[in-house]
């Protein structure tokens, strides 16, 4: 009798557990769908007025009620690209050093430091970027780049320290700890047996790292990179502080630019006209779609990598 009772409570608790988890999962889906529907609904006026040209028009003129997202999309994509180009190789090197080469105590200390960096709120990066890093860029790094590359298209204009390049570098600092932390964990999970066998065959540290560790952890690296990408593309405050908030598309990385999130942060409160507000919400919709496409792309890529590498 007693056994019977216990079983029934167990069944019930299982049912409740299932119900709770299911509700959570469904709520998540509902939120995503509701968000998407609401974004489309609220940007209806702008969608109707500008159509597809919203995506490639570079005019952002609240006075004349003409809006185009090109400059914001361009800024978001370029600043994120700069960050990824700098952060991904750098974090792989850091992770390699921590796992393969550094003495364990040292590695632990640096590991804690990285986690601390990852936990730092973005506004801190923004303020540090504006007050410390931007003047440093203007005084040393930008003149240095100008010296090396001359007056190439990418490094034209006066070195003012605020602009696309600074935003990209600040984003690099922000996503570096994320990618490093994930990559380090992945590298650390490579079975010692595999590595030892490679060493046993006479491979050098570099060969083991390149042919065993990286190959083994490639999915983790890509996963970490996309985690960083996700953060970089949606980052708002830090970018707003240093990007310069100018609605223009200029080839020079020294020039002030804008990003979708920075435009939203700056202009939402003051957008009193319906079309202006609607255009801003459409910007949000564009960001939503971009993020979605990137995530979908990442998924497909991961699948393909899994097949081609043939591990796990």
């Amino acid at each position: 009798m007693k056994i019977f009772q216990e079983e029934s409570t167990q069944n019930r608790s299982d049912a409740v557990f299932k119900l709770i988890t299911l509700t959570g999962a469904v709520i998540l889906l509902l939120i995503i769908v509701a968000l998407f529907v609401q974004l489309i609904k609220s940007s209806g006026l702008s969608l109707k007025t500008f159509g597809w040209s919203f995506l490639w028009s570079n005019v952002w003129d609240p006075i004349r009620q003409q809006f185009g997202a090109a400059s914001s999309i361009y800024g978001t994509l370029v600043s994120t690209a700069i960050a990824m180009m700098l952060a991904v190789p750098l974090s792989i090197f850091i992770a390699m050093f921590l796992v393969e080469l550094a003495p364990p105590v040292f590695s632990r200390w640096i590991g804690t430091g990285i986690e601390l960096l990852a936990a730092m709120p973005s506004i801190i990066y923004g303020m540090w970027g504006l007050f410390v890093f931007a003047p440093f860029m203007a005084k040393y790094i930008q003149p240095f780049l100008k010296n090396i590359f001359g007056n190439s298209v990418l490094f034209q204009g006066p070195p003012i320290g605020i602009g696309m390049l600074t935003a990209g570098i600040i984003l690099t600092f922000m996503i570096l700890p994320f990618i490093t932390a994930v990559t380090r964990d992945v590298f650390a999970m490579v079975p010692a047996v595999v590595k030892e066998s490679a060493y046993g065959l006479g491979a050098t540290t570099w060969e083991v790292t390149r042919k065993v560790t990286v190959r083994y952890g490639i999915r983790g690296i890509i996963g970490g990179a996309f985690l960083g990408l996700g953060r970089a593309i949606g980052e708002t405050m830090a970018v707003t502080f240093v990007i310069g908030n100018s609605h223009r598309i200029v080839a020079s990385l020294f020039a002030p630019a804008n990003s979708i999130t920075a435009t939203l942060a700056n202009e939402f409160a003051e957008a009193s006209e319906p079309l202006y507000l609607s255009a801003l919400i459409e910007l949000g919709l564009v960001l939503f779609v971009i993020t979605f496409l990137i995530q979908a792309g990442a998924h497909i890529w991961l699948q393909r990598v899994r097949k081609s590498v043939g591990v796990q």
Partner: protein
Amino acid sequence: MKFWIYAFVIALVLALVLTSCSSGGKSAKNTVINGAGATFPYPIYARWAHKYQKQSGVRLNYQAIGSGGGIAQIKAKTVDFGASDAPLKPQDLQASGLIQFPMIVGGVVPVINLPGIQPGKLKLTPQLLADLYLGKITEWNDAAIRAVNPHLKLPDLAVTTVHRADGSGTTWIFTNYLSKVSTQWKEKVGFGKAPSWPHANAVAGKGNEGVAVYVKKVNGAIGYVEFAYAVQNQMNYVRLQNAAGNFVAPTIKTFQAAAANADWQNAPGFYLVLTDQPGNDSWPITGASFILMYKKQKNAVVAKRVLAFFDWAYKHGQQMAIDLHYVPMPQKTVQLVEDTWTKEIRADGKPVWP
């Protein structure tokens, strides 16, 4: 069973939190005036509110969310009054059933970051200011600037213009001025709270503080901030040539000179912009900040409480305004405004004021 106990406890805590929130809101509502809008007059409104609360017990809850936000909030009827640096046109007032009146006068000051140039030493004509922001002058040692400042040793620096990234009444006043003094600006850019800035090397900061920081951090930058902000942060200001042809420095005196010439009497709906005013000493980029209220008030007591605060501010807040580098409204204008209250603001068909 444990689960149900947890659920019950959580529900209880939630219920407690919710009820305490709502009751807190109710009890405070009786003595609070709610306003939202311009950031430009925020320091003086906050000072007035602090003093007024001590004397009358009425608390002013003013959200400095920007002029555009202020207009949106009053139209959504979430606040008792809205505040805007840009006056609404008489037909807009008519359409929305609002009245507006000027509360305080302030000024916008161009500030620069030029190594080796002392504050107030650089002189600019209206044309030069417009050309700098249009991107026609790109170097500080341009011949046109040297011609006006023959005694200054101007550095060989590129011009970076700084403007507001957020829509702003300060921008409205500044671009309104540029439109008045430069036909090219008027045709190419126009004026508004967030115009499309023409200069390629233009950086934008959020709020006065954002502009101020960018100007301070970028060598060769020129920006514009409200006067009080420039004074408090000891920024390097320029002297501007006014309509009379004199180069004037931004001081309380030059703002007062500009405000004194304002003809509020003949401005329907108090639609008057104080930029480029005549007068030997007038600072050219001056502007009033406005309050917006509904003509038809639902609750006479609330409406009167709001008006009583403004009346007190007009009559007892002058010195505080001057201390914070604003220009209080002259007595004559105050009378005009209060007459308008009596005429226009009604609850149940009866005048609310006095």
